[in-house]
């Protein structure tokens, strides 16, 4: 059996068990809650999608709060803050603890408490949106009192983990995973505090006008590129070498990709309002940089491809590698889509259409969530002390998620183009929207079906995860692999190194 580390002794695996045990509480707490929010968000996404082609669906007087204009932001916010950020925090805790090479001495309880407050914050925010407290700022719709709760909870977890990581001796030198994770933990509070102070407080005293919308667009893109992207790529750089048993193909290339991403990402975002009232240089820079971001995306994809090269059979058997592989591929698709949206050449007919929703979903679900699913499938058995119950459930989760998100993104991008073509068609000068509504409606049915697929897959993921968190998994020494014919070829859990 292959191992990544030939000096893997009993002492080291004992130390790993100790590390895992020291972060078990917060990580499993965050995972279980995030899976619940994912389910909630998926249900809301399904309802919102159905309402776009059948507006009378659930249109009862007693359900007045479930109209599309509240359902859609609630769905996106639950997906981002409830699911993606929360599961990302859990994975970040575990990755930093493993990379530090030391068990966490204290602070696990504090992190669980912070996690509780994070969930209280998200719950209040979602109730706030439904109840009429929405700020109508994209991805910042939570009422203004929620953001300090989220920031505090985030900082408690992030500071504790960064402190722990920095104080350990193993942290010297350029270690890809930890630098990606540290960058994400470092950038999110900076971005989030800036935009909330500016938009929710400063703007009321000193009106920002159209520039406020620009800041909002900047937030959406930097959240994707400076929180979700580094965290997701950090996980990719951890799990791909670990499971294939091969070192990252090129560290120089990886380092280049990292600094390209961090250096470029802050300039993007304003291209959402290209042709709009913002000074023209802002969308121009955003559009240009979204093209340049193809460089780090290509670098990462090349590096992951060369690392996995010759080991593609493992994608068949290892659930983690399978999810991470799709996630890492989606990063390339996401960057390509971002570049298409950023220039006038293609963006003129995709601006303000469903294509932007497609871009957000490939980023948050296709790339980030798929990577996180991979991480969850790897981490949970080590923390819960039992193995996943059923390979079939994992396979179902994988295929329904992949088909769901692929159908969703394809429908939204093509539907968005159809919508934009109709709005921009000179022949439609005297009938403003009917063509665009009718052109897109077929694709919206596709979108609803895709959410139904994803809902099915995530329902089973949630049930499966709850069993694991409760310690009701399979008692076995061999991990749950997807194809037992390959089980002798490789067993991920036995190759684990710190």
């Amino acid at each position: 059996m292959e191992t990544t580390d030939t000096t893997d002794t009993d002492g080291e695996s004992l130390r790993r068990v100790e590390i895992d045990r020291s972060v078990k509480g917060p990580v499993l707490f965050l995972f279980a809650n995030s899976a619940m929010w994912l389910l909630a968000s998926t249900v809301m996404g399904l309802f919102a999608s159905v309402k776009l082609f059948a507006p009378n669906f659930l249109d009862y007087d007693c359900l007045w709060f479930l109209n599309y204009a509240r359902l859609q932001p609630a769905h996106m916010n639950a997906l981002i803050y409830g699911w993606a950020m929360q599961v990302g925090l859990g994975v970040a805790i575990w990755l930093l603890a493993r990379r530090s090479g030391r068990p966490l001495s204290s602070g696990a309880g504090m992190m669980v408490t912070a996690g509780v407050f994070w969930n209280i914050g998200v719950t209040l925010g979602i109730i706030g949106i439904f109840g009429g407290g929405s700020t109508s700022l994209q991805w910042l719709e939570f009422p203004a009192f929620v953001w300090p709760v989220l920031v505090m909870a985030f900082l408690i977890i992030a500071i504790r983990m960064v402190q722990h990581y920095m104080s350990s001796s193993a942290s010297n030198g350029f270690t890809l995973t930890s630098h990606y994770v540290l960058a994400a933990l470092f950038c999110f509070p900076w971005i989030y505090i800036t935009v909330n102070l500016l938009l929710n407080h400063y703007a009321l005293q000193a009106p920002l006008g159209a520039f406020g919308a620009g800041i909002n667009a900047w937030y959406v893109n930097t959240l994707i590129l400076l929180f979700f992207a580094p965290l997701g790529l950090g996980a990719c750089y951890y799990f791909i070498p670990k499971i294939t048993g091969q070192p990252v193909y090129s560290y120089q290339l990886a380092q280049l990709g990292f600094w390209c991403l961090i250096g470029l990402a802050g300039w993007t975002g304003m291209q959402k309002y290209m042709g709009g009232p913002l000074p023209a240089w802002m969308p121009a820079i955003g559009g240009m940089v979204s093209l340049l971001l193809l460089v780090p995306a290509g670098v990462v994809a090349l590096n992951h491809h060369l690392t996995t090269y010759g080991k593609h059979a493992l994608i068949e058997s290892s659930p983690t590698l399978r999810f991470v592989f799709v996630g890492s591929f989606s990063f390339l698709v996401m960057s390509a889509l971002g570049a298409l949206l950023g220039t006038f050449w293609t963006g003129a007919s995709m601006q303000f259409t469903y294509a932007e929703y497609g871009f957000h979903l490939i980023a948050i679900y296709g790339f980030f969530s798929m990577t996180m699913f991979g991480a969850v499938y790897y981490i949970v058995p080590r923390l819960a002390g039992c193995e996943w119950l059923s390979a079939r459930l994992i396979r179902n989760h994988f295929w329904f998620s992949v088909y769901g998100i692929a159908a969703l993104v394809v429908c939204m991008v093509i539907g968005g183009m159809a919508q934009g073509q109709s709005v921009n068609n000179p022949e439609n000068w005297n009938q403003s929207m009917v063509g665009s509504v009718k052109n897109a409606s077929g694709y919206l049915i596709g979108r609803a079906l895709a959410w139904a697929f994803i809902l099915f897959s995530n329902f089973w993921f949630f049930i499966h995860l709850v069993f694991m968190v409760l310690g009701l998994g399979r008692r076995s020494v061999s991990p749950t692999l997807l194809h037992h014919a390959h089980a002798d070829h490789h067993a991920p859990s036995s190759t684990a190194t710190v």
Partner: protein
Amino acid sequence: MTSSKKFIYGLGICFGLPWLIMIIIPALKAQKLMPLPYDKDRDGVEGIYPGAGIYRQGQLVYAREGCSQCHTQMIRPSFAGMMDATKKGWSSDQSEIPSEPARSSNMRDYLGEPIAFLGVQRTGPDLANAGYRLKDKAAMHVHLYAPRAVSEWSIMPGFRHLYVTQVIQGNGSPDALDLPKEYAPKKGFEIVPSLEANELVNYISSLKKDAPLPGQVVAEAKK
């Protein structure tokens, strides 16, 4: 310097630079933007541009209800195949065939708004100049209450929760909605807009972002 310190400084500079240049400095400079006066001799009109501000109370309802999920408030210029400016009814000229295309939006059009709701998507029509287009407030109330009573293909949600159903007293309320049969309330009842609905409609009618620019559009139109 240890490598972790170098790393933190690197991060700070890499992200701090765009943060400062794209966000902080423009946010401070946005405060310096002032209205421009019209010149009577040159422009033929008096006053300042932009003239009236927006109706903030109604904008709060607009935000709360999430209208910007589907409605933009910005007119794009006519190039790269973008046709906003020549859409019927999207400019100040509401005639059947407008003689001038709508002016593309600029920063000053949103002066005084804490945050302009430029919009997330354009599923419905642009509202930058909705004030010129939607003059009949009673019709706008019917549209908000039952969108499909106005256009059967519309996918806009109805905002019935902003309206009150009440017993008709005397001659009935002058504000009662004139609804088509399938949306009308039971006999003896009428539907009147709540305070919020009125504020929202006032806000939408105040959206007029096609005012002539001092020294530019008016002078050109005179030629």
